[in-house]
């Protein structure tokens, strides 16, 4: 059975027919074609599938797609405006915060959730914000530095 679900995705209205019981991660990757959230564990332990729903971080591998009706979903695809990259994207590039890149989407969204409500986070705030995201490559330090640097840069976009 399929259920129609209307939601906003990166500021655009979407409507999809969703299989009964389908998870948001599958909806985004398989139907909508938004592949930034990744499948790392399907258990809610790695954070690679992190998206924002109404501004708060959720693990899309555990969220039923049909519960997203009327919600506003944000993914990495919505961070840049044309070639105006989000300060987090610029900072991740500059600080070598990505190696294999598989955790990067989840880290960016977890970090965005933090900076959207706390423009001046402490290091402890940053660590708490990403404590649900596993990285096996960088050792986390470059990611923490990048998020702090992005905060300093401010959330205003570069031209």
């Amino acid at each position, binding site marked *: 059975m399929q259920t129609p679900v209307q939601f906003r995705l990166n500021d655009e209205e979407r409507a999809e027919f969703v299989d*009964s*019981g389908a998870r948001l991660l599958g909806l985004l990757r398989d139907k909508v074609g938004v592949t930034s959230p990744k499948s790392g564990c399907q258990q809610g332990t790695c954070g690679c599938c992190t998206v924002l729903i109404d501004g708060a971080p*959720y693990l899309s*591998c555990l*969220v039923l797609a049909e519960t997203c009706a009327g919600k506003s979903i944000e993914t990495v695809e919505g961070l840049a405006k044309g070639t105006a990259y989000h300060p987090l994207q610029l900072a991740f590039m500059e600080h070598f915060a990505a190696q294999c890149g598989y955790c990067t989407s989840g880290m960016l969204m977890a970090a965005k959730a933090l900076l959207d409500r706390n423009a001046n986070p402490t290091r402890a705030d940053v660590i*708490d914000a990403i404590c649900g995201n596993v990285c096996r490559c960088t050792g986390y330090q470059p990611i923490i530095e990048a998020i702090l640097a992005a905060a300093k840069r401010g959330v205003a976009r570069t031209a």
Partner: protein
Amino acid sequence: MPLAVKTFDKLRDVASALGADAGARYLGGGTLLVRAVNEGDVGVTTLVRATDRGLREIRPSGLRTSLGAAVTMAEVAAHPDLRFLASVARSIGGPAIRNMATVGGNLFAPYPFGDFSVALIALGATVAVHSGASARDVPVEDFLGSTDRHNRTLVSGVAFRRPDAEKNFRFLKVSRTRPKGPSVLSIAAHLTMSGTRVSSARIAYGAMAPTAMRAKAVEAALTGKTLDEAGIAAALAVALNGCAPQTDAYASEWYRREVLPVHLRRLLLG
């Protein structure tokens, strides 16, 4: 067979749907149940949800506070009247998990999870258990070992008396990854003081038994004592009474037994 999802407003309709279908399960935050489905548990064929807003209510009225079963850890951590529970809620998963994990779900979480239940036991909390059209209040420490929990009987919320002073409620959680991660162990203590002496104590442990447990021997040994090295010595001597920790991927039974008294001492000395 594809997974079915059924949504009802009221818990009694949820209960009927669950009773009628052996493969149906109640969906709280999804952190345990959707995980099981993702991992290939084909015994789960239907997810049943309740949208009753009453399940999301936090009512800190007077001395007795009630939390609906669908209240999330994030909501507990953010509530201005629940500051004494903030450290507990923040210890349960990262930010995304906390947006999803519920008070009710934590009661059913398997070893070594269930740290919120540890705090609830220390607060002398009761859980509203649904049977038929009515609900009865059962102390959390009794519910955890009950057939109700084994049979996944629905719960609609928990209630407890607030501690008189925030500093009288203490909690610590030991995990291998910080700041969050599954418990090696957790300890909650609600100490009621008379001057410098403990007039009554409720102490609970997580991951030191198949479910969260009360440390009654420690409570008795602390009553009437001061919270200094000499005063807590008798309590530390019986710290492991009643404990049956397990070995799992996070810690061995041996390790849990070794470090519990150390952490209890630190918690009591503040």
